[in-house]
């Protein structure tokens, strides 16, 4: 147990997608826990299962996807345990958007072009009974938008989504998800669609907000820079599995998994033209026919005997630093 007071605990989660081309084994035995009040990051490349994992937390997986197996416990307050997998659809909807709120990558997809920003905010509040009616909600919307640092919130309440820039839309979406004072905010690449300067604004604001509201943040990103600036604990995902988990400083100082190391070296960082960047050979595997054993082994420069046969377990090497690699496991032979 890493956390004394976890907010969410996931054990051995499996998610499959049943498509024509085959069964996509998108999430393959993922276990992690998020401590109350921290910023937990999931990093990894496209298709490694970050979004699916985050959606699975509130069972937001649509057909052809299915949660095959796994336990998910949510602790809205210390000591109060809710088994997400056992809730009815109705009950889970009550949690979604109230205790656990989402921000997605593309803000326009979360906003209906026919309704004003104020209506959107009011609707989420009214659904969860925070306000009695939409009307009352619209009156309170400006307050909520101010919290999200929307410039000039009183007039934005009456604006339609298309009248706002991308950054402002994302702020409106953040406002919506904050309207009910969630305990856990899941931000799925909230700034990928935005400019760096706007990204910097939004990230600063999320940081401030966390301190003020005692929010727990699950931040999903593929940007190592954001990880370094925002996170407390980082989980590195590769092809549907968590390969390494560590506090952020520890991870950057002492990356253990060959994939994490490769990832760190592949990011250009203050390097000029005369340097050569290291790259990870090969490409991300197809999750319909994932490589047997360790899913990273075909691209791994250190692979040896058990790698292509047995899956390495995620074990704690140093305090709070877990890695799934045979280089570090006892049965592996070496080390």
């Amino acid at each position: 147990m890493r956390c004394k007071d976890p907010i969410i605990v996931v054990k051995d989660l499996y998610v499959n997608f049943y498509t024509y081309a085959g069964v996509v084994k998108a999430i393959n035995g993922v276990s992690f826990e998020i401590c109350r009040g921290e910023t937990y990051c999931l990093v990894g490349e496209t298709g490694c299962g970050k979004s699916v994992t985050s959606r699975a937390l509130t069972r937001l997986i649509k057909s052809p996807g299915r949660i095959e197996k796994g336990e998910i416990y949510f602790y809205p307050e210390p000591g109060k345990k809710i088994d997400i997998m056992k809730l009815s659809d109705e009950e889970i909807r009550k949690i979604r958007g109230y205790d656990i709120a989402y921000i997605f990558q593309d803000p326009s997809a979360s906003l209906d072009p026919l309704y004003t920003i104020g209506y959107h905010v009011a609707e989420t509040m009214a659904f969860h009974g925070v306000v009695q009616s939409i009307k009352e909600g619209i009156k309170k919307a400006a307050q909520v938008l101010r919290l999200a640092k929307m410039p000039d919130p009183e007039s934005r309440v009456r604006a339609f989504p298309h009248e706002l820039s991308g950054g402002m839309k994302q702020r409106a979406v953040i406002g919506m998800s904050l309207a009910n004072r969630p305990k856990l905010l899941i931000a799925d690449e909230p700034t990928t669609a935005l400019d760096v300067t706007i990204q910097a604004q939004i990230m600063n604001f999320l940081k401030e907000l966390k301190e003020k509201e005692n929010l727990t943040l699950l931040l999903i990103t593929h940007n190592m820079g954001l990880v370094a600036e925002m996170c407390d604990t980082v989980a590195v995902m590769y092809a549907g599995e968590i390969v390494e988990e560590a506090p952020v400083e520890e991870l950057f100082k002492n990356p253990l998994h060959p994939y994490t190391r490769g990832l760190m070296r592949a990011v250009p960082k203050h390097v000029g033209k005369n340097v050569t960047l290291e790259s990870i050979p090969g490409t991300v595997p197809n999750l319909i026919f994932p490589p047997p054993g360790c899913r990273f082994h075909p691209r791994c420069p250190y692979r040896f005997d058990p790698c292509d046969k047995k899956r390495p377990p995620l074990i704690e090497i140093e305090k709070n630093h877990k890695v799934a690699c045979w280089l570090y496991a006892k049965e592996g032979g070496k080390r």
Partner: protein
Amino acid sequence: MATKEAEEVYEKKVLDRVSDAFVDALANLFDKIRPGWKVRNQARVDEWKLMFYAFNRSPIGIAGAVLVAIFIIIAIIGPWIAPFSYGTSLALCNQTAYLAHPGTVVKIPKGCEALGVKPGTYRLILGGDSFGRDLFSRILYGARTSFVVMILVLLVGPWIGVALGLISGYYGGAVDETIMRITDMFLVFPGLILAIAFSAVLPSRISIFLKDHPWVGSFFLHLFALHPTERGALASLVSVIIALWIVWWPGYARLVRGMVLSEKENTYVEAARALGVSTTSILFRHILPNILGPILVYLSLDSGGVILTEAGLSFLGVGAVPPIADWGRIIYDGSQYFPSAWWLVFFPGLAILLTVLGFNLLGDTLRDILDPRTRRSIEFRLKKKPKTKEEGEEK
């Protein structure tokens, strides 16, 4: 904990094996014609198989395909399997055939050979009409009429629209403006009215043309499976076809123009331009192949539309003239005896309904299947390969 996945395979139904065999046979044929084709197009062959799998999993699509297949088969062999010719008035020999109920048995005495009927007893399964003609035979012949009209209309009309739409969409500017205004002019008139107008004006010119070129007439007579005596009635049938060409292109011009406009925005079109590829190559090698899928879907949906319109025209009295068998015409003639002789309206109506329904169901399914994105999202049922012992233990 090592998780070893049990190998899963997709359940292949009988239909899948049939379609696989069909696609493979086709591929082998292409390979014979152009050696090396199969190697170069393996990916395409796989895609075709996939399309069939998706199709095989759509009961609606299969129902549509069955209906359409029945229609086409009847249209082709109908005139041969029909017990009587479309114009044979059995009532001349035996009065019982006059407005005979479905299932009536009619005895043909000797001396009626002139009508082309051998003596004997015949059962009119769908009944007879006001001339004592066998409704069943007339519906079989009617299928041929509808089918030929449909094919001839769809082979020309829509493609005029496609060509204009391609030009209009790609070049834009004044060209686009001109073509679209003309299209609008055609579109503001309801298609049926326009078709009536044209089918009323055209026959006289066409009959002159047919007189000057008798071989054209003979060709059409064979196509429609008509007696040489009906040569005079051809003009009206041909004019229906031409009228339908005229009303059928504007919709396609609009549709294709829209698709070209969105396709043109794709980076690969700009990439081709940056490489110095000529405009015609871009139009025919990039844009057309990419919009062909939706066009095919519309053609399938429109097949029913053409049959319906043609029947409507005949029903309104333009188009097929008596005694040519045509579904619309049969309903029109029979409606005077409705409701006592209900079968004269009911059976041809049913034939139209089922055929149009078939094409629509087929078209709807094709829409899903020809779009690579929806095709891939279809959920497939798995069949677990029988577990080996070792795997069973691990579980």
